[in-house]
């Protein structure tokens, strides 16, 4: 009986071809990349705020800010990956929540270039944090794709929320949301120093 069972197993499991290492780590990398930007509330609030602020400012900031943030954030991520040290990353992330939240709360309308510089400056801290915390063994390209898509989606959500800015009540709700983001940023700053 044992021989019959063994021979049956042999016939069933005989590997005509072994597809070793096919696409190894790719799905893992993509999922890790998608998950990373949404894994921390400080990141999520800042990225959604960028979209909301862009929606308040209107064209061209509404697309310039979400274009600026991922690119500069990716640059920060690159620095993090390369092991370049950046002081005060957690503080920078927390302050980004405060500043971006206040910008939405106060409907701050600087020149487009200034808003792009503000967003880009803080994007470096967010990107560096992500770049320094990459999981080992995942596919670099797939991680990067997931990472950028998740970030861009958070901006799109922010822009989507910002659509309510066209109504009077919506402007108030948006400003309140900005205030909440700023308060959360203050909490994260306190925690960074605690």
């Amino acid at each position, binding site marked *: 009986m*044992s*021989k019959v069972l*063994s*021979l049956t*197993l*042999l016939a069933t*499991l*005989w*590997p*005509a*071809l*072994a*597809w*070793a*290492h*096919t*696409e*190894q780590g*790719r799905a893992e990398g993509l999922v890790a990349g998608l998950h990373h930007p949404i894994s921390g509330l400080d990141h999520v609030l800042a990225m959604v705020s960028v979209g909301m602020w862009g929606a308040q400012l209107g*064209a061209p900031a509404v*697309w310039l800010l*979400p*274009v600026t943030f*991922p*690119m500069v*954030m*990716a*640059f920060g*991520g*690159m*620095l*993090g*990956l*390369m*092991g370049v040290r950046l002081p005060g990353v957690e503080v920078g992330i927390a302050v980004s929540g405060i500043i971006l939240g206040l910008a939405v709360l106060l409907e701050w309308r600087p020149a487009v270039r200034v808003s792009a510089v503000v967003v880009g400056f803080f994007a470096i801290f967010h990107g560096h944090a992500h*770049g320094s915390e*990459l999981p080992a063994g995942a596919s*670099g*390209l*797939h*991680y*990067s*794709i997931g*990472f*950028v*898509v998740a*970030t*861009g989606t958070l901006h799109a959500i922010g822009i989507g929320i910002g659509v309510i800015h066209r109504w009077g009540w919506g402007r108030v709700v948006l400003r309140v949301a900005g205030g909440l983001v700023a308060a959360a940023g203050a909490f994260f700053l306190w925690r960074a120093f605690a």
Partner: protein
Amino acid sequence: MSGRAVRLVVAAVVLWPTTSHAHLVSTGLGPFYDGVSHFVFTPEDFLPALALALLAGQRGSRAGRLALFALPPAWLVGGLLGQAVATIDSAPVLTTVSLLVLGGLVAAEARLRPEWITALASIVGLLHGYLNGAAMTQARLGILGLVGIVATLFVVVALVAARVVTIRASWARIAVRVAGSWIVAIGLLLLGWYVRPA
């Protein structure tokens, strides 16, 4: 033969890999469809082709047509060269540079002349095709796998470039530029990934 001996033989046979195919998708449907799936599931090739199609579409129908009839043939020629002489089947630097340059041009909505886009398509096609050809040879997929890649490439470029050419809404044109910026961002992260300390 004792039961233990039989089990040992079974274990040896089951675990013995007769062929090892590294880094390629196997559909089980033959080399043509392996080539199709390789292109679709390999962002190293798909993203530069997508960026080029977006760029060509941004510059209008003539640029789109030129790219459509320059990129796939160049990819095929590069693939045949790769199958004949290639010694490497991946070049991270090429992927990174392709993403940064092509994504950057899309994000900036660069006003390139159609001839320049044709030249870019030819260069991208030759280089990426060359690497594909080498990979196809290693995977023993032969020319049919390469044809699968090129056929899929043709369809993707035709659909994407044609769609972008017909875009009139300003928000949709901005969405194309945003896609370009995402491709640049991916390229930057990839650059960091490759040069990071071990």
